[in-house]
């Protein structure tokens, strides 16, 4: 009897629609985030994360409606990330029905915001998203740095030190994405995930690179993550969340079935 490792499907939402493509055979409107979220809930997802990638601030209001709709029909934890820059943004999302918000670039530009958000709403609802890229070369000790703008812009901040700092500021959880692996379907950056997970007491969610069910298992067993996040492996009907959990259970990982 112990805590189950979590599987978190992630939906990229642009102006109220799921993008990156979602193909379920029996969902007519695959771009509707509410339908997709309901489907993942039925499959046994432990949480759902919405990443709002809407470009203009004007259209950001639509994610609020999405969260409101989902929260009134799906009774599992919901996380919303993307464009969270102020205490007001956090409040808006929590009031809409989100349980946690993921803070990404705003943490880099203004680390005090993380502390302010945690002090105001509690650490339990503040996730800090860390986008990291390996900067060490072969034969050098591993080193990762934080990148912004989808991995295009370097910050010079050491990812491990940053993770510890975010924990100190009160973050309740870390969402660690390898920008080297994201979209490659070649598995998580396990060394990155493990190094961060072993450096902090708070839970780490592994993200970026899942292509096979075994990648999810590796994130837990080798990456020491508490939860694994994936998008396309579920979106295209390649695997259901249920199948992923069965695969994890076979590896001796405790899951909620």
């Amino acid at each position, binding site marked *: 009897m*112990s805590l189950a490792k979590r599987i978190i499907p992630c939906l990229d939402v642009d102006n109220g629609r799921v993008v990156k493509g979602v193909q379920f055979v029996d969902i007519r409107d695959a771009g509707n985030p509410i339908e997709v979220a309901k489907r993942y809930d039925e499959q046994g997802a432990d949480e759902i994360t919405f990443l709002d990638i809407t470009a203009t601030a004007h259209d950001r209001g639509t994610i609020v409606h999405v969260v409101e709709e989902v929260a009134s029909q799906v*009774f*599992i934890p919901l996380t919303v990330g993307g464009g969270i820059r102020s205490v007001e943004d956090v409040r808006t999302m929590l009031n809409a*029905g989100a349980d946690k918000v993921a803070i990404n670039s705003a943490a880099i530009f203004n680390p005090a915001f993380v502390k302010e958000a945690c002090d105001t709403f509690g650490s*339990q609802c503040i996730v800090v998203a860390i986008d990291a890229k390996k900067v060490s070369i072969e034969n050098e000790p591993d080193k990762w740095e934080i990148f912004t703008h989808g991995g295009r812009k370097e910050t010079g901040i050491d990812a491990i030190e940053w993770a510890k700092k975010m924990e100190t500021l009160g973050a*309740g*959880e870390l969402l660690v994405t390898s920008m080297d692996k994201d979209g490659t379907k070649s598995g998580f950056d396990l060394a990155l995930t493990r190094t961060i997970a072993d450096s902090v007491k708070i839970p780490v969610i592994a993200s970026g690179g899942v292509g096979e069910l075994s990648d999810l298992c590796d994130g837990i067993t080798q990456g020491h993550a508490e939860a694994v996040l994936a998008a396309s492996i579920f979106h295209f009907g390649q695997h259901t969340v249920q199948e992923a959990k069965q695969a994890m259970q076979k590896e001796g990982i405790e899951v909620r079935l």
Partner: protein
Amino acid sequence: MADQKLVTVIDYGMGNLRSVAKAAEHVAGSNTRICISSKADDIAAADAIIFPGQGAAKACMKALNESNISHTLMQAASEKPFLGICMGLQVLMTHSQENEGVDCLDILKGDVQQFDLSTYPELKMPHMGWNQIHQTTDHPLWHNIEQDSRFYFVHSYFVSPHDKHIIAGETTHGNKFTSAIAQDNLFAIQAHPEKSADAGLQLFKNFLDWNGQ
């Protein structure tokens, strides 16, 4: 609508009330009305009370004290079907260790303690995610919920009641801790039933069907 049942979700500015109300509404019959309120009148008029809560103990107690509903709340807790959730369990106790010590409502004798994971270096804090609740009593609120079902938790402190007979459920994170309490008309749970999928919805249904005995 004379026999309409009113269930008040207490709003004192601390917690995801909308989710709690939505989950209760999802399983409520047509003659049950779920209302979110911070007014003493709505607490006094209610047939049943849901008392959620999130955040730190000190902030919760401060919000409660400033809301001027403590007295009505205590009254309700002594006579109506009463469901405490998360911090709504912890603040029922005598005292919490959180924030260098906070006096709580003292409706249930006991303390709120921090997890000691010093012998479990692999375990994370907060205790966040889906863990099992072992039902230690036969209670109407456990009706149709499988033994050892998983519920969603997120917390760093847990309750330790003096009277062990009021323990209704236990969970293990390193050590075993009390995850649900039942005493007379009062039931309180450390997990978030509003985020615990089918098991949680069943618990809400059981609560709405419960006469408090």
